[in-house]
């Protein structure tokens, strides 16, 4: 099978040319990036994930408008995850690109991204105007559920990456050749 989109060797060569590969392969490079990645995930779940729970109707009495002010911490956590995740992938592209756990993780991230856009285009105003004890409308509860399910799925898929290392090979976009 031939990959018309990604060239793992070229990606790794690029990572070496900019020093990411060397940094990640120092004694503490990889573990440090993992720690930052997990800090990011913690921030994301603690802010966005808990906001999702509140949207689902948990912890009524906590103001959603006030809770929403913590979302920038979740965005910071997301950025930490994206940067370190990028460093993992470019430093060992063959381990990640064709890994079903990573593909599942990225798919769930994409669904979560679309879900966020839907939230801000549809129910965010209604949610921010609700009182402390109000139950959010059904679409908002649904959006909260999808978001939380996606982020928990992202964490789980990330944890399972080591189960699907080569020779595991998933490539729906590859062509014979």
């Amino acid at each position, binding site marked *: 099978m031939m990959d018309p989109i990604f060239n793992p060797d070229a990606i790794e060569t690029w990572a070496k040319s900019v020093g990411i590969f060397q940094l990640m392969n120092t004694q503490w490079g990889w573990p440090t990036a993992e720690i930052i990645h997990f800090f990011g995930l*913690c921030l994301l779940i603690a802010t966005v994930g808990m906001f999702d729970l509140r949207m689902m109707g948990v912890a009524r*009495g906590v103001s959603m408008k006030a809770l929403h002010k913590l979302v920038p911490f979740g965005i910071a956590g997301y950025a930490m995850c994206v940067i370190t995740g990028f460093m993992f992938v470019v430093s060992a592209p063959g381990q990640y690109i064709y890994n079903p756990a990573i593909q599942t993780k990225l798919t769930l991230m994409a669904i979560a991204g679309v879900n966020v856009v839907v939230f801000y285009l549809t129910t965010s105003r209604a949610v921010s105007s609700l009182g402390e004890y109000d139950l959010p409308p059904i679409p908002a509860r649904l959006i909260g559920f999808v978001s939380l399910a996606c982020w928990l799925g992202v964490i789980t898929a990330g944890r399972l990456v080591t189960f699907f290392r080569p020779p595991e090979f998933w490539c729906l976009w590859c062509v014979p050749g």
Partner: protein
Amino acid sequence: MTEIFTAIEQSPFSIFMREDFYAYFIALIFHSIGMALLIGGGILVSLRVMGLAPGARLERFAGFFPVMWAGLALAVLSGIALLAAYPAKALTNPVFGLKFASLIAAAVLMRWMVQRYFPLAAAGQALPPRAKWLAAITLSLWLGGVVFGKLLLHTSTMLMVS
């Protein structure tokens, strides 16, 4: 100790956890979700006590506790199953002790804050200045539990079974 590890590793449950196609995999999934719910809630309460999101009433954050308890139950049960699979690998690693010490200390501190600060917040009184420091320490301990858990992979030295 080696005899104890060997006895655990030869038990039917330990063998099942290692050799069944799905057992270890499913336990890891539950452990990830349980830890995320437990620590996510813990960090959120710590951030709130530190003074963030002041418009949200602190005492109402108790509404998140049932989810955290569910997360704790999930994490502990799946953690026991994971530990049963490779007891020597975890129990001979000092980092495993650090993970537990961090999480237990975080839980104890959080309980202390809940017992003292939630009634103050409910009565409309200001929290003492040291509350922010305690919350910052609690937050660090929750994060420490995650970090030490992650570092287990890089620091274990003893594997009696594969």
